């Protein structure tokens, strides 16, 4: 059964192997420890000009009873690449609303420049968890070219 603190520590360690400086990760429990949100943030190496680029991981987990396994309910994985002025985010939240309105469970964001998007939500693919998300975000980070958001499918 998944141990949430161990999972968070492993994920933060993995973020650190990219060369990022990891801010102390944290877990916030609610509803009598039946729900939890975890936060892992990494500052990517670079000049810091204009600003330090960041990777953000936020996940929301829940369980039906204290002795039952955790289940990943929502996530928000994000790359803020200030050097390239690019934001990429993979989201799973408000699933019922997105299914009702767009017939999708997950969506993505793509902004270049950051804060400017021609589309509020882009089609995305489900992500199994923070490790896979990190791989995808870092793939964008090491890409030879800056992602062209206009090539994505707008919901």
């Amino acid at each position: 059964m998944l141990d949430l603190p161990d999972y968070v520590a492993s994920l933060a360690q993995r973020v650190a192997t990219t060369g990022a400086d990891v801010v102390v990760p944290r877990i916030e429990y609610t509803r009598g420890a039946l729900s939890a949100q975890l936060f892992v943030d990494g500052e990517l190496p670079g000049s810091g000009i204009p600003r330090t680029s960041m990777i953000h991981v936020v996940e929301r987990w829940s369980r039906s009873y204290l002795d039952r396994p955790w289940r990943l309910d929502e996530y928000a994985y994000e790359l803020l690449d200030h050097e390239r002025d690019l934001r990429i985010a993979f989201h799973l939240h408000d699933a019922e609303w997105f299914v009702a309105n767009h017939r999708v469970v997950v969506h993505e964001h793509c902004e270049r420049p950051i804060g400017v998007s021609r589309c509020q939500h882009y089609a995305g693919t489900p992500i199994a968890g923070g490790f896979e998300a990190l791989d995808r975000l870092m793939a964008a980070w090491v890409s030879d070219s800056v992602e062209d958001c206009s090539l994505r499918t707008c919901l």
Partner: protein
Amino acid sequence: MMQDNQSAREAGQMDRRYYTPREVSDLLRVSPTTVMKLIHEGRLFAVRVSERIYRVPIGAVSRLQHGDARTYAPTEEVVDRDSSIGEPLAEDEHTAVGA
């Protein structure tokens, strides 16, 4: 050179942020096999671009070289709020939920 960089940026081409495993092996003075072993063991971060192509972020090599003895145990706390982690949906979008 400045013009070249500007042209490259306009074309979406940027300074390279990664090493190839071969370059890492040269830098670390180890064999390519050792580099791949480090990658597969998770000690050296790499992005798998295709079946046989990996990219190692430059920072990942520095991290490996300098080591990292830190542990990343999370802080844990109980909080009152319990809300969705997503961005606020537009008012008209919320309206559509009940429609």
